[in-house]
């Protein structure tokens, strides 16, 4: 009975998918045709495309860099009309995207506040023939986006664990200051760290003695670290989930006069962090979570809208998913990465 029902549902879904695919195809074709006459000239094909981006409030260094990079990327193209919307929460972001769909843009770039919650509205856009490029936080259904560009949060945790295990030679006490509790970014950064630490140091010599959320916020980071410093008499390394928040953690350690006892790592790649890494001392490394993915998303949205595809790939197709790898930034290689730093 249940099997039968499931089979029917699957068949239905399959039909639906076919329908969507068919729609998508014809859509792509018309775009290709209209863009074809001018396709010889590179950037200024004459046909303007409108791209609307929707992102969470950019009150945080990394998100600020996301919106700046997106705008900068759009400015480079004379054939792109770009607007950026910010939404305070998932609900208002959904409403905002609804309104954006009504404006019939050629493509949408969406960094969802909450991937799960914004999946239906993204599906609606796709069904309306507006391709969606999803960044950073994944939608929960594959038909909600034409293409997806993600940072690798799990790998960030893996890299951090690798770095810390190596520095400590698998022996010492570690504190983890997490991001906002209950979002996938935090969970992935934490899980990658825990898994890799187990793998690297099977003897269990590296102990995570405290694990608390600092909400990606410097003053919460400061307060939480102040208390952890009281509770832990010996700390060798601190893994923080974010460079902005890490500034508060750094300050707590310095205020306590314990900066010789331990070192700290961040995530993101902010100018401040890179400066401190270059100077040496407490701040030893950060793991790049490149906000340039917003620029890539705008580029990709433009290519999809024009039906051109990636120049180096067979047009007009674009990759379904791009995962931007994380990188370890330390004093040795910080010079290479300084150009990607955001403030």
């Amino acid at each position: 009975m249940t099997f039968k029902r499931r089979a029917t549902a699957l068949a239905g879904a399959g039909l639906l998918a076919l329908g969507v695919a068919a729609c998508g195809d014809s859509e792509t074709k018309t775009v290709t045709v209209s863009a074809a006459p001018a396709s010889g000239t590179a950037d200024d094909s004459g046909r303007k495309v409108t791209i609307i981006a929707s992102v969470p409030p950019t009150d945080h260094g990394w998100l600020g860099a996301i919106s700046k990079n997106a705008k900068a990327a759009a400015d480079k193209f004379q054939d792109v009309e770009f607007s950026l919307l910010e939404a305070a929460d998932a609900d208002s972001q959904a409403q905002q995207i609804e309104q954006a769909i009504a404006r019939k843009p050629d493509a949408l770039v969406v960094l969802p506040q909450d991937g799960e919650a914004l999946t239906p509205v993204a599906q609606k856009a796709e069904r309306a023939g507006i391709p969606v490029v999803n960044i950073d936080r994944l939608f929960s259904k594959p038909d909600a986006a034409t293409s997806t560009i993600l940072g690798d949060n799990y790998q960030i945790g893996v890299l951090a664990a690798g770095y810390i295990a190596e520095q400590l030679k698998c022996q010492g006490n570690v504190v983890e200051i997490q991001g906002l509790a209950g979002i996938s970014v935090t969970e992935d950064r934490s899980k990658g760290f825990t898994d890799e630490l187990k793998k690297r140091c099977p003897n269990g010599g590296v102990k995570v003695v405290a694990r608390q959320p600092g909400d990606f916020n410097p003053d919460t980071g400061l307060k939480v670290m102040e208390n952890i410093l009281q509770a832990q008499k010996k700390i060798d390394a601190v893994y923080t989930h974010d460079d902005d928040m890490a500034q508060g953690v750094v300050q707590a350690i310095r205020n306590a006069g314990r900066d010789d006892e331990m070192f700290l790592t961040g995530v993101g790649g902010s100018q401040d962090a890179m400066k401190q890494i270059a100077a040496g001392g407490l701040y030893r490394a950060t793991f790049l979570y490149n906000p340039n993915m917003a620029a890539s998303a705008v580029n990709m949205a433009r290519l999809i809208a024009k039906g051109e595809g990636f120049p180096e790939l067979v047009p007009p197709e674009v990759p379904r998913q791009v995962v931007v790898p994380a990188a370890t930034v330390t004093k040795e290689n910080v010079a290479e990465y300084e150009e990607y730093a955001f403030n």
Partner: protein
Amino acid sequence: MSTVADRPQPRGIARLRGLELQEYALALVVVALFVTGAILKPDTFPTWDNIRNMLTQASVIGVLAVGMTFVIATAGIDLSVGSMVAAAGVFGGIMVDPEGGSLLFIVSAIAFATLMGTVNATAVAYGRVVPFIATLAMFSIGRGVALLLNDKLPVGLLDLNGGSFGDPAAFSLLWFGTGRVLGLPVSVYVFLGVTVAGWVLLNRTRYGRYVVAVGGNREAARIAGVPVRRVIFSVYALSGLLAGIATVLLCARLGSASPVSGNLYELDAIGAVVIGGTSLAGGRATIVGTFLGVLTFALIFSLMTQLNLSTEVQQVTKGAIVLGAVLLQRPESRW
């Protein structure tokens, strides 16, 4: 809700007794939390170092809560203190960036917060906007201003240090956060000073009696010759001024001013005032209770972080302790 006025006793004395009872009950909660901490974490919790840490952490919310006590005493509320802290910090930050001294930061942050408090005050006292709405608007405006002032970026303030870390020069900005005098951080002196001043103002001056009278029965106070509007105006301005002082303490410890700081501080301040025994309906206020309420929050936070409890557990525990504290200190006679 029944009030003390319903009972036949002389009003002033009855009020005092009820409040004193609540203060004792809350003092008991504070002691119980401390003892619990000492049992669970004997090596790290009851240490002088940790007591100093808890007092330092309490100082920011503590200063805000003193202002909040006056506001709530008039049956008002100030939802904007956290946003004012963020906006005043960033404003002070851009004033001293790239050149400027600690004094300029302190003066401009306090002035900016006071100005914002004055806007609240004008709206409530003269515009007759309900306090909840006026300060909710400022909650939003303040956060927006904090983000607009420096293009959403934090401003670094370490250059105002004037000394090395952990040992800031006297009267530099960081000195207010981490400098010590006779073993206690300067911020704790500021907190205690504000608390004592608040106590004197509320309990030993005519102004304090006016504040409570306005909250108790506005019409009666007006007939008795209390300048009701001016009193209401003053408490919101005072709340702004104290938000400015709290800003200085926070930024001094953090070494930077961030537009996202002060998030939901108003709730902690209101929580501390209410578990302290000040009535949200106005007319009853206690600075001692507020002080103990602030200590309760600081103890809970420190203990839970030391026990490495997860956020979910922390949230449930904090809520339960607040509820328990309020229930415990409710005198039966008031039902």
